């Protein structure tokens, strides 16, 4: 079994042609989508000009989601290090880890990220991603905002950015679902409903929604015949199905578009379940030492799965550290210890993912983004002057015990984003934040619409791309106003 078999991607110019064809096909299907009140792509911008998509610099996109608010001062934007000391005023705490050098001169990151430090020469590091505080920090709401570009609630269901890529670009390999979501459970925790609200195709419908794989090690179950059914039985079941369809005397009363779409969908599903590519979902096919390199936990294994899926032709893959209230990056207390563990979980797999993609010649055309809904600070909830309620669970003026040590408040004034490959610069630092509290942006702020516009631009999508929903335009960046940041693009 050749687990490294790569899906041959179409060359750039052809992929543009494919998109045009796709859009043309969509236009043909326009009437079909209207039936269900589904959205129709708008072909012209407000100048009456055809929306021009930029030439794509990346085909695939992997979003590494640091769910729960990753503290930039503990990771990619280290500030003055302050060791734990009983009786120390908490105001003194900026970072609870010392900074370390990276392979790029002038870029230092936090201790515990040594592996990522070694691949920093492939990265663009943004330290100045600024997000609104929305008046009250609710993680799932901020995550909704980051993933869709729109603050909830909305009058129509806003699609996830992965659904936008799936809808506008389509799959790379038709067998692999274009939007795959790894590591997030959608049931069984306090904000599950809120997480579900943005983990959808939105108004694009389920065709463009996420293919959810909460447990990477079990991903293969999602593309295997049901438990207890062997391949032979599965095949003959499908053959019998085709025969029955052929024999059905009832076909004439049902419109072709209804019946045809149904049979096409069943066929596509069957092709995935019977395809070679489904081995991409199977982590057990990896060499043991490679697997171990990634195996720091569910997130690490998710990175490995993402690599395999991108090799097989996935368009968009999100891997999350998983959002569960008060767990993982959501450090309302005991932040130092938690950050140490989280860094241990992400450091090796992310670095390995970059090296593996590079090794396979995929990094140049794969955009990898690490981001979070906001950062953290020892003192400030939101930004200075914010009305957001303090939600720290380790409230104290001086450090008394380790539980107090760490950044426990949600800080929206600046957060870090790391980008690799896919047309971004290498070994490049963008933006600057104040070295003393409040650690606001002192240079080159990056808003969410502009960050999204940059990602979309690299993927070959105009930030003005819009669909008509309920007879009004709905844009991929809020009101079509995101602008790609030229400085970030190689």
């Amino acid at each position, binding site marked *: 079994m050749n687990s490294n078999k790569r899906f041959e991607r179409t060359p750039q110019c052809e992929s543009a042609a494919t998109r045009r064809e796709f859009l043309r096909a969509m236009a043909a299907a326009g*009437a*079909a989508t209207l*039936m*269900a*009140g589904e959205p129709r792509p708008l072909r012209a911008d407000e*100048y*009456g000009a055809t929306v021009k998509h930029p030439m794509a610099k990346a085909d695939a996109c992997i979003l590494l989601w640091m769910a729960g608010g990753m503290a930039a001062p503990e990771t990619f934007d280290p500030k003055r290090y302050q060791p734990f000391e009983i009786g120390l005023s908490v105001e003194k705490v900026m970072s609870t880890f010392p900074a370390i050098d990276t392979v790029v001169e002038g870029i230092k990151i936090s201790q515990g990220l040594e592996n990522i430090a070694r691949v920093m020469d492939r990265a663009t590091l943004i330290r100045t991603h*600024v997000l609104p505080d929305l*008046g*009250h920090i609710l993680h799932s709401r901020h995550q909704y905002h980051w993933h869709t570009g729109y603050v*909830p*609630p909305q*009058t129509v*269901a806003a699609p996830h950015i992965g659904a936008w890529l799936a809808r506008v670009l389509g799959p790379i390999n038709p067998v692999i*679902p274009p939007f795959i979501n790894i590591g997030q459970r959608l049931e069984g925790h*306090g*904000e599950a*409903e809120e997480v579900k*609200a943005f983990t959808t195709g939105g108004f694009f419908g*389920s*065709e463009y929604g996420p*293919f959810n794989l909460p447990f990477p090690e079990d991903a293969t*179950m999602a*593309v295997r*015949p*049901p438990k*207890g*059914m062997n391949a032979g*039985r599965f095949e003959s*079941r499908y053959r*019998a*199905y085709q*025969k029955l*369809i052929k024999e*059905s005397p009832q076909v004439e009363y049902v*419109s*072709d*578009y*209804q019946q045809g779409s*149904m049979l096409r*969908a*069943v066929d*596509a599903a*069957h092709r995935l*379940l019977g395809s070679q590519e489904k081995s991409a979902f199977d982590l057990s096919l990896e060499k043991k030492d490679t697997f171990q390199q990634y195996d720091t936990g569910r997130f690490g294994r998710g990175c490995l799965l993402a690599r395999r899926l991108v090799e097989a032709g996935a368009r968009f893959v999100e891997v999350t550290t998983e959002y569960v209230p008060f767990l993982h990056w959501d450090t309302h207390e005991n932040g130092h210890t938690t950050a140490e563990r989280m860094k241990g979980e992400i450091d090796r797999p992310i670095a390995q993912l970059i090296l593996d993609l590079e090794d396979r010649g995929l990094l140049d055309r794969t955009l990898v983004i690490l981001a979070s809904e906001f950062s953290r600070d020892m003192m400030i909830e939101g*930004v200075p*002057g*914010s*009305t957001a309620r303090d939600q720290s669970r380790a409230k104290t003026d001086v450090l008394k015990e380790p539980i107090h040590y760490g950044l426990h408040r949600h800080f929206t*004034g600046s957060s870090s984003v790391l980008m690799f490959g896919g047309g971004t610069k290498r070994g490049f630092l963008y933006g600057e934040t104040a070295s003393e509290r409040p650690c*606001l*942006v*002192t*240079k*080159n*702020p990056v808003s969410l619409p502009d960050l999204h516009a940059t990602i979309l631009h690299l993927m070959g999508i105009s930030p003005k791309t819009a669909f*008509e929903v*309920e007879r*009004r335009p709905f844009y991929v960046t809020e009101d079509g106003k*995101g602008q790609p940041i030229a400085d970030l693009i190689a």
Partner: protein
Amino acid sequence: MDIPSPIIRLAHCVLFGLLGTTSGAALRAQESKPAFDFAHSVVPILKAHCVECHGGHRHEGDFSINTREKIVDSSSAIPGNSAESYIIEMVTNADAEVRMPKDKPPLSEAEVNTLREWIDSGLPWEAGFSFAPRNYEPPLRPRRPELPLPADGRTNPVDRILDAYLAERGLPRPAPLDDAAFMRRIHLDLIGLLPTRESLQEFLADANSAKREQLIDELLADNRNYTEHWLSFWNDLLRNDYAGTGYIDGGRKQISAWLYRALMENMPFDQFARQLISPTPESEGFIRGIKWRGNVNASQKPELQFAQNVSQVFLGLNMKCASCHDSFIDRWTLEETYGLAAITANGPLEAYRCDKPTGKIVEAAWMFPELGRIDPQAPREERLGRLAELMTDRENGRFTRTIVNRLWHRLMGRGIVHPVDAMQTEPWNADLLDYLAVHLAENSYDLKQTLRLIVTSQAYQSRTVALDEPPAGPQYVYTGPIAKRMTAEQFVDALWQITETAPKQSHKDVAAFLTDAEKKDRTNYRASLVSSDLLMRSLGRPNREQVVTDRPSMLTTLQALDLSNSPLLAETLSRGAANIAERLADAGPTTIIDWLYESSLSRLPTAQERAVALEVLGSPPSPQGIEDLVWLVIMLPEFQIIR
């Protein structure tokens, strides 16, 4: 308390204030305005000063600003060059005699500058936007159309109208539906379940010519199953669910118990609407909307959600656009939306245009004052009561047209006005819509009477027509009913029915409101009474965050994948196969096949189908064989599409 996003803006100001430095990129971010905002900055100026004489039907001086093309073609503005654009010259001319707008105060300097910027940035325009008036305005009052004479003894008013419609166009009537297909369709449409094999056979054997009407009346009288089927329709429409965003911190309230009772009692629809608009504690969840903690966009404050939802649900109107600015797609204005919102507001409500305060406090009012007014000074409860009265006023034909159109859509596959939430659109048959609406009012707003009227028509009892493409566009011509895809709940209920695998317990919130008598003789619960699960979600049971009035009509690949290998479905099939094996323990394979076909498709298999099925089933039938055969049948388009 809501503090909308000026806070956010303030935060940015603080940020920039702290900059001190003027690095290039920061300057760029600070100075460069994003894409020019035609909708929100230019339209108000044009509306205030130009449209009166140069928009809509009027084109003084042979100049119309209705569309971008008209402006460019007339050369009155040169995109990218305001200095040489005639419009600017006209609005800035020093001679008051010549200056536009004629005989009116001149534009402010800021307004002129905005127009300059607009022209200089290339004259951006909102796609599809026009100042031209819409040429169709739906009537407000009810209207009783004159019915054409019945043809060939087809006396149902629906048939009288449609037969004439078809005859006028020289179109054939759709072919009549056979008893078996009728049996399946009417069960799924009225109570959301498949007919059992026994009831099917009994019905087919019945020689009574009134048997269809009798069956219809029986099904409509089956209150429990009627309720548990239509519950999903209403939950979608009223965005009610057992779980969802907002419940986490009391930002949302269920109306499940109230809704269940209302359907069980077949509450008249006018009363139903009144209790939702002017609610009791049990029904107040609808107008309360969903409240997230923190700042929300001004257009999504609970009061605005009220305006949007009340107008969409009861009038099929879209006031979402008009929640930010005067709508571009229909006649609704920002002020009308805020007027509606102010009815439920606890204090003065300031209008926000595109999330910016306008300084204008809007008084409570509703959009059809010709039916009666709302006293803005009255206390909130009185205002809501008055709105409820006005909404359900006998003279409000829009109210009845909207709901009968929704029911027609569910039964016949396409609205008379379509999409069903674009009630400003011209119906393909106004007489039909108006008749159904008047009929509802005259039958004490009894929705079951509307259903009965439709399903007793020959039009409903016709074969579905195969169309080349979905019947979406304005050119639609009725030729017969259109097949519908089963909803997630219908699919799951049908599967549970065949396999006897329905859950033994309802959602806990349902258990809390069902009476002991209602629980006593129950062995299982239907899809609408349990939480959505992965399979139902995948098949299109929506997150009810927004009002949903139409489920997706096509199966998608991810859905098909779930149907092919979801553990949930596999487990159901495996339990179901065991149940079927037990139930038909002594039967041979042919009996099992025939039973399954009749139970699922309301027909016997053909000889060829039986042969394929036999191969799958094995002889003697194996549990795996039964499992696979059930899967094959429920995956047939014929099963999933209600024809």
